[in-house]
């Protein structure tokens, strides 16, 4: 279960993680990845949540900020990199400076596109690679094999909106006539992101503060067998307000061979997510496309 990308209230996050403790997932990522201003709202709950998840048998991983600019953010990164109790997933190269001789995971917002970059980082502590979602199948296959050779594991996002861009500007604040420093946390109004439609009202993007995501939801349930066959070891679900326990159960059942992909897909359709499913990137095509549905 990937970190929650959106600005959910502390209450909602607590409720979410208490449910996820019973979901059939192995790893749970905690931490604010998108906006450092949001981080204080949940900090005091990390101990409790990490404890509950660990007791439920989950591997807790802390995921760090994807964009680091300010002093406060630099301190946050230094602090996380000093963490001893939990593995770390890094999402910005600032963390690399701090991680000498320490094991760490590389997040999907880091640019690991090829086997040379992977080998370089693996030789210096990276043990797990969550790959960028725009990578096509053939490249993922090479990277999965390379990781195996290097003794590392690989992860691919299989569910949820696609992160498409980061900016220094907050587009949530902008839509509300504000600026980032005076945002008043308007992003809290959109727990799955703020819809952005074209002028002819075609659904297009989803705004989450400084992050721009797809309107559509990535769904690689039909590709799970292929992913497993090529040696990908971890399958990433990105949290949304839809019943994520149900989503996890469906993916788990297909991974375990208890449900076939077609039935899994039908069960995901039945969750009535208000956006289409896509898998174009995987097939080397435009990301908004759904191939072979």
């Amino acid at each position, binding site marked *: 279960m990937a970190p929650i990308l959106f600005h959910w209230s502390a209450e909602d996050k607590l409720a979410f993680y208490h449910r996820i403790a019973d979901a059939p997932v192995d790893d749970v990522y905690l931490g604010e990845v998108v906006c450092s201003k949001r981080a204080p709202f949940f900090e005091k709950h990390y101990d409790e949540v990490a404890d509950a998840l660990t007791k439920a048998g989950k591997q807790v991983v802390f995921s760090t900020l994807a964009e680091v600019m300010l002093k406060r953010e630099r301190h946050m990164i230094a602090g996380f990199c000093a963490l001893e109790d939990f593995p770390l997933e890094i999402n910005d190269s600032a963390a690399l400076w701090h991680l000498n001789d320490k094991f760490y995971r590389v997040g999907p917002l880091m640019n690991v596109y*090829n086997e040379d970059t992977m080998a370089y980082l693996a030789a210096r502590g990276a043990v797990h690679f969550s790959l960028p979602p725009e990578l096509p199948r053939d490249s993922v296959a090479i990277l999965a094999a390379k990781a195996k050779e290097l003794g590392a594991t690989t992860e691919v996002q299989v569910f949820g909106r696609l992160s498409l861009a980061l900016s220094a500007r907050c587009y949530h604040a902008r839509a509300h006539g504000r600026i980032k420093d005076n945002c008043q946390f308007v992003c809290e109004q959109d727990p799955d992101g703020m819809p952005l439609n074209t002028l002819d009202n075609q659904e297009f993007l989803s705004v989450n503060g400084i992050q721009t995501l797809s309107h559509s939801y990535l769904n690689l349930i039909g590709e799970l067998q292929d992913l497993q066959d090529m040696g990908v070891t971890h399958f990433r679900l990105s949290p949304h307000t839809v019943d994520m326990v149900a989503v996890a159960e469906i993916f788990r059942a297909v991974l375990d061979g208890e449900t076939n992909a077609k039935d899994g897909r039908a069960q995901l359709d039945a969750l009535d997510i208000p956006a289409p499913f896509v898998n174009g990137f995987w097939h080397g095509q*435009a990301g908004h496309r759904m191939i072979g549905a």
Partner: protein
Amino acid sequence: MIRPELVCPAGTPSAMRTAVDAGADAVYCGFQNATNARNFPGLNFTVPELERAVANAHVGGTKVLLALNTFPPAGKVDLWKEAADTGARLGVDAFIVADIGVADYIARKHPDIRLHLSVQAAASTPESIRYYCREFNVKRVVLPRILTVPEIKQMADEIPCEIETFIFGNHGLMVEGRCSLTNYITGLSTNMDGVCSPAAQVEYIKDDAGNLSTRLGEYTIDCFSCNESAGYPTICKGRYLTPAHDGPYYAFEEPISLNLSTLLPDLMKAGVTALKIEGRQRSKAYVKSVVSAYRKAVDSIMAGQDPQISDLLALTEGQKETQGAFKSKTWR
């Protein structure tokens, strides 16, 4: 104050000659393939063209910087390595890189050639930049266009390499190297293919009322009424709809150019030692006027005189311009 290097775009051999003649201290360019971030039709250099161009530029002491600043997807890294080997053989003065694997290859194979860290690497903190300097002996960082001048000044005190910043030209809104919007619509990736809003998938559609829609792939990016001039459909400069905003609006930014001419003295005082003009896709006439104007401005500042800002402001006449993130945090 160190005399800054004026780094100018060279999309074609003739644009490079123009930039050199107009007073560029350095020019940057790429090969005709995915190894650089302006992999547009009709742009860039063949190997023989670059060979001649390097020789020509070096006659007057102009440096040639080769952009290898995309991210090779797994299985295709040889293309980037060959490009680096070729560049080294032709005598380029520096490589501009973003990918860790590419940086490592050049640092090992061509340790005598300078490495510059591309804006595409999105290194926005002293820690990140120090990492690249320590690991790959990077000599210069091209800063992402997200920092204010005071932040750049502070950065200069904390890093062991030179700083290059963009001062003029197209102003991308997303952090470079971290945007796959084009790939989402078109199937061509900015990071892997060096493509942004490819012309082959652009359409201009006029309706009965005379309104002109600009489209990229299957998505409308903007719509212009008769009295507006239509812009190129770049996703981050389009108009969109959202319930929180009354009517169509530029959700990311207006079609606007970066022009830091009035901040030039401040940037130089802040420790910026290379000033970069964007525009490898621009005409020779554009390159000539922009490079000449900035050449004069930089020379004036170095001579202790006020630069003739009006010349620089005129360059974007009729077009909106911005100082982007550089002027104030309120841009964010």
